């Protein structure tokens, strides 16, 4: 008569001695702790940029790095439904509460007076990219060209597939806000809004709409895609206005 088969660990005592459950759990816990510690050390050691930025102050007296932000080297792909991405089909409609609504194609945009400046951007998810050089056309210039009516108070940045985001007129036409088509001398990759995106650097980055299609001046505020989904209507990074 055949002896009943024993589980592997009981048939091989040397294996049992090495790998009983307690040893396994202990090893797993130690391994996890080691990996976590290594990850934390790696992150701390590699975060010189953040430390350095925290020590800096902007010309307006605010700290260069808003609270709760960490500096990374390049824009992170945050998803979104991409627009067509090609310069040939690009059109920018400037309309709403203006005297002379108009539409620009890509070549016409490039023919307008250009603005090139370094700017920091801050994503609501906690990363910041500092000091990139952005090139484009100031929103203030487009506003002036369109003749914004005195009663307009807000700007709605319109983008592919109906995405919108709202910015107060004063902030959208601030000197740093622009319709950008180059970053660090390169065109935007499709995932970062090619060919043209908005840039409102002093607000969280979702206010800088990718795949821009229009700029609409409005009298009454119209919360945009993320704003109606629980994100803050204003989005000041220094006040940590992340969620409404």
């Amino acid at each position, binding site marked *: 008569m055949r002896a009943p088969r024993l589980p592997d660990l009981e048939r091989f005592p040397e294996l049992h001695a090495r790998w009983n459950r307690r040893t396994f759990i202990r090893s797993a816990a130690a391994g996890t702790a080691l990996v976590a510690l290594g990850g934390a050390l790696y992150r701390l050691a590699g975060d010189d940029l953040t430390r350095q930025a925290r020590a800096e102050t902007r010309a307006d007296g605010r700290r260069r790095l808003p609270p709760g932000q960490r500096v990374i080297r390049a824009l992170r*792909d945050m*998803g979104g439904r991409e627009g067509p*991405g*090609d*310069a*040939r089909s690009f059109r920018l409609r400037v309309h709403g509460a203006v005297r002379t609504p108009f539409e620009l194609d*890509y*070549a016409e945009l*490039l*023919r307008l007076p250009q603005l090139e400046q370094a700017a920091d951007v801050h994503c609501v998810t906690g990363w910041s990219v500092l000091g990139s050089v952005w090139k484009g056309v100031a929103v203030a210039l487009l506003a002036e060209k369109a003749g914004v009516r005195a009663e307009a108070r807000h700007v709605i940045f319109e983008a592919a597939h109906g995405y919108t985001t709202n910015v107060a007129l004063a902030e959208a036409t601030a000197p740093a806000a622009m319709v950008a088509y180059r970053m660090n*001398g*390169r*065109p935007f*990759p*499709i*995932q970062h809004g*090619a060919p043209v995106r908005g840039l409102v650097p002093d607000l969280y980055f979702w206010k800088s709409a990718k795949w821009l299609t229009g700029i609409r001046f409005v009298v*009454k505020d*119209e919360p945009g895609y993320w704003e*109606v989904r629980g994100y803050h209507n204003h989005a000041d990074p220094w006040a940590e206005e992340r969620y409404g």
Partner: protein
Amino acid sequence: MTAATPEPPTAVVGEGLKRRWRPWLRAIHRDVGYLAVGLTIIYAVSGLAINHLDDWDPNFTTYPRERAIAPIAADAPDDAAVEQARAALGLGPPRSTYRAGDELHLEYDDRKLVIYGDTGLVVEQGREARFFLRVANWLHYNRGKKAWTYIADAYAVLLLYLAVSGLFMIKGKKGLRWRGAALLALGAAVPIAYVVWSGGPAAEQRATREASERAAREAGERARPSPPPPATP
């Protein structure tokens, strides 16, 4: 001494079956498990990949690549500029071209090149299919249809067998009576608890309806004509 009464053959068969069904179950479970490994890896890996669509593109990697060619004269005709760039880069005819300012855009199916004529800098942005994942996701989505529908159905049946047979593979305190029952209850509790906590599909439907009603209401308010100005005295 009395002769033992022989048991009826059916009882012997029944007893044998009672004793032997578990090894059979295990043996089939093992072989079905081997059979299912390939598809399980495909479905599990691609499931992880497409579950995080918001965070990444599970099918393609995008890449930037830079090169330099001789500058292109600003007054060169468009066709000549395209030919010069193509010759310098060894490229075939593009799907479309576009020239604006100092930029020359060449569009191909899987990549786009922007050439800055004044400096000769070429910025190429393209996308390449991810190894394995592109195919795994294609299978997972059953984009090809046809025979894959039957294969996927058969695989689902095999998985059901693995799940059910797994319950009865061993007996005793590590079987379904003790540890097995506890873990089974825990596993079943996870989706139940999630549905209870989230409100399930009904809550999602309600939220969508409320959002669209709110949007319609707001659109109506925006579209409502403003009252006529008061008559001048």
